[in-house]
């Protein structure tokens, strides 16, 4: 096994990855910066317990609405909870919901998109009509309807129905883009060859076509993490997403945050900055990824 690791091909592929990464950083400096932000956020989200200075739920009546200081970097809220710690725990909520809903939505969308392009004809028509229906809703409106219909279903403190609500609007948007890319792949000789060799439809779709639409899939996946975080924040802000006392950025802006504009502007400022920076980083990274992976789009 150790020999295999040291074999030239393994070394080469490892260097190739480093080379690719360096190339990406050189070509897309903004993308590299955004990647650093994303990694920092993931670090904070995974190691909340170590990184956060306070417990996000501890109520401290001695420090209600304390302004930012060395003790509380971002001040405290109306219950004396440390805002900085709540922001760090909030990044966990945002990332978990953002990643899972974008992953589920984009993957389903990619499957529908490729299937639609591969089968064509009547199946394509049906899938397109269903996608048209889903596209007729703005993201937040569809998510709200799903929330209204399904209510809450908590698994490990995470509302699965909230994830579904955010994932569903993503499906048609990804499906449309992936279908367009897959239509180009379908006419490739190797797909004909696979069909002539008698492979099953699912094998051709997953092994031959899917790997060739990975670029648009990855781009959409990253971009929709941003949209999903934004949707989660909006839903939580409306009181229909994550529920108190769980720390979530959108939730921190809702309810009594607005009542304290004058007294405690930090309650409004910091959670909004957190949302904006996170969404900004994913959008920028998605943009850079698109320019890097698919130079055709770089007009």
């Amino acid at each position, binding site marked *: 096994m150790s020999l295999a690791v040291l074999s030239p091909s393994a070394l080469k592929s490892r260097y190739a990855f480093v080379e690719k990464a360096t190339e990406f950083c050189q070509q897309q400096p903004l993308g590299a910066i955004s990647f650093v932000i994303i990694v920092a956020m993931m670090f904070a989200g995974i190691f909340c317990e170590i990184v956060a200075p306070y417990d996000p739920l501890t109520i401290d009546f001695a420090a209600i609405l304390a302004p930012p200081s060395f003790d509380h970097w971002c001040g405290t809220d109306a219950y004396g909870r440390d805002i900085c710690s709540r922001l760090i725990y909030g990044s966990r909520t945002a990332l978990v919901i953002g990643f899972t809903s974008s992953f589920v939505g984009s993957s389903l969308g990619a499957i529908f998109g490729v299937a639609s392009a591969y089968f064509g004809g009547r199946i394509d028509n049906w899938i397109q009509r*269903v996608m048209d*229906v889903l596209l007729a809703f*703005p993201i*937040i409106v569809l998510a709200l309807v*799903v929330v209204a219909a399904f209510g809450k279903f908590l698994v490990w403190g995470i509302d699965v129905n909230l994830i579904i609500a955010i994932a569903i609007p993503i499906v048609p948007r990804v499906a449309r883009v992936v279908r367009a890319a897959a239509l180009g792949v379908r006419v490739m000789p190797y797909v004909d060859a696979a069909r002539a060799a008698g492979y099953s439809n699912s094998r051709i779709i997953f092994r031959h076509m899917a790997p060739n639409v990975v670029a648009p899939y990855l781009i959409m996946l990253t971009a929709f993490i941003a949209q999903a975080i934004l949707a989660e924040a909006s839903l939580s802000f409306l009181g229909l997403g994550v529920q108190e006392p769980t720390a979530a950025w959108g939730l921190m802006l809702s309810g009594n945050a607005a009542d304290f504009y004058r007294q405690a502007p930090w309650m409004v400022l910091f959670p909004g900055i957190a949302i904006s920076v996170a*969404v*900004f980083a994913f959008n920028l990274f998605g943009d850079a990824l698109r320019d890097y992976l698919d130079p055709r789009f770089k007009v």
Partner: protein
Amino acid sequence: MLRYTIRRVLLTIPTLLGVAVLVFFMLRIIPGDIVEVKLRGDGGSVTQETIDMERHRLGLDKPMLGQFKDWMVGVVTFNLGKSMWTERPVMEEIGVRLELSLEVAILATLIALMFAIPLGTTAALYRDTWIDYLMRILTIGGISIPAFWFGMLIMLGLLTAFNWLPPITFTPIYVDPVANLTQLIWPAAAVGYRYCAVTARMIRSSLLEVLNEDYIRTARAKGVFEKLVISRHALRNALLPAITVIGLEFTFLIGGLVVTEQVFNLNGIGQLFVQSVTRNDFTLIQGMVMLIAAFYVFVNLAVDLLYAVFDPRIRYS
């Protein structure tokens, strides 16, 4: 062209029907309806008999397909039924709030266009310079900053700088234009930023594409002033894809308004939608979703037809 138009118009029917089916049945798969929220909402003990009576009165005990048929007949005749909560007709509930939301949407569009066209054009002309990078950061900021938080920042800024907050009661524009505009320009700016960013990005990329076309080279070769090349030859053609984005984003403004109206305490369509969702007001949710979807479908239709008028290649495909 006629055949294309007919085909395109007919295609809207299955979409709208699909929306109706989706919303209607999705709301009813999971048990729990407005009666529970209404009667048990504040913890009062109500007998099952009262609940059943209320369900019967609202027609919620009828077979689902029957309910759907009744509702569809209503939709086709533009009668969306009565709100289950306020008992007023859905059309009326929406109508009284439409003016406000529509005005904010139109103001936002105007703000967006005012900034997007110059922003997108400069970004394209100074491609890959620091100006372009700055535009890129500004526009990605537009699609990243939540409109509702941007609204809160505007309020915070107004409060700190002028110690002034927009009034809560709505003044129609024909009663007092100044009061109306000073109230609505802020939420319009809050949702307009995203709109502007998306449009500017679209204008930038389509302008860059057009600038590579042969007729631009021809125009330059025959000695047309660069300014004229940009404004007459390039921008005109580049605006076509931008029209699509402007049209589609206009419907997405409704999504932005859902949250932003909450911040500015505006009693518009968005607020009504959130209320009806929290109250499980089925008829009102259905009615609003149908209207939003119909609006989207028709904007889409209009954009497609406009495209076909401008670009003959589409008609024959």
